């Protein structure tokens, strides 16, 4: 990258007044270590103050800033401009979600589905003390690494099964379901199995791996979903209780 300037092509849309979305182009000076978040912030602060987007932590922990950047859902704060390999950046809102304005999407459908799998832990009543679980006992399978999900919705925006079926609850919610169902401390695992085993659940996943491809935390929801499918089948045969 030789030029010290970025061409940012940014999606603009106000559903209340605009009939059609449009793209605005901005020239933004390139700075060292520039993240895409810096680009949109520069535009909003100093060029077009009406731009709307969402962010909070700026270090990839809150999962608020997911956008569709140069062909992929990514976290704006964790996407270095340099890593895109070009000075032309096209920024759109996260797919598969309604748009509030410009780059800010309404995460409601995502969380509606998240809630569907009863995402909250319900402890077994006999467990009154923190469980004693040795790290090498294998009891936690690979739950712990799958708990890193920051509910950014990148996977949800990338999965074309979500795009074509508004009922599919999507990789993030299923991944969360797995972490609970495989948690031996949890009391309502069968209830959850019955939710993810419905037709809007695990069966809609066809191992596209788009979710894993875009997950900023490098999770592989596909793997969690496979574990759930297995348990659904086992449960049918009365093996998983």
């Amino acid at each position, binding site marked *: 990258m030789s030029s010290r300037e970025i061409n940012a092509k940014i999606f603009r849309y106000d559903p209340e007044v605009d009939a059609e979305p449009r793209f605005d182009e901005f020239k933004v000076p390139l700075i060292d270590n520039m993240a895409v978040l810096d680009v949109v912030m520069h535009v909003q602060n100093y060029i077009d103050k009406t731009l709307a987007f969402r962010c909070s932590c700026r270090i990839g922990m809150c999962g608020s800033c997911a956008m569709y950047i140069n062909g992929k859902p990514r976290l704006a704060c964790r996407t270095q401009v340099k890593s895109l390999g070009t000075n032309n950046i096209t920024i759109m809102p996260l797919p598969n979600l309604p748009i509030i304005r410009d780059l800010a999407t309404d995460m409601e459908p995502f969380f509606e589905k998240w809630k569907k799998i009863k995402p909250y832990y319900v402890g077994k009543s006999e467990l009154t003390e923190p469980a004693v679980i040795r790290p090498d006992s294998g009891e936690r399978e690979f739950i712990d690494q799958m708990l890193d999900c920051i509910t950014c919705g990148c996977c949800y925006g990338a999965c074309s099964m979500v795009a074509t079926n508004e009922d599919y609850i999507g990789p993030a919610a299923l991944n969360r379901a797995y972490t609970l169902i495989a948690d031996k401390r949890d009391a309502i695992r069968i209830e959850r199995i019955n939710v993810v*085993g419905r037709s809007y659940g695990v069966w809609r996943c066809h191992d596209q791996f788009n979710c894993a491809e875009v997950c900023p935390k490098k999770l592989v929801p596909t793997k969690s979903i496979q574990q759930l499918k297995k348990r659904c089948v086992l449960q049918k045969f009365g093996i998983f209780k």
Partner: protein
Amino acid sequence: MLVNAITWLLQRISAALLLVVLGLHLWLLYVANPAEIIQFSEAKARLVTGSYVTIYVLLLLFGLFHALNGLYTVMVDTGLRARLVTISILVILGVTLFGVGLYSVVQFIM
């Protein structure tokens, strides 16, 4: 629902078995007997001598289930609502085709 897990499993099982029988079918056609034009008598001779009949009946059974269940999956994936109607049609279609296919197989061994 109950059936989801079962049909999903059957789709895998049929796939695994298809791998064998369809593999054999293709092997017979392209590697073992790469004929210019298949003749009824040759085909008949093959079918009668080998116990290929079983293979072809299985191929029909698994192939049809796998194909029609696959089709159903595709439809549900894209938001199919009229599930019962669709299932009924697919089942009728499947049974009919199975009958028709069986008829063909029987022609070869008679």
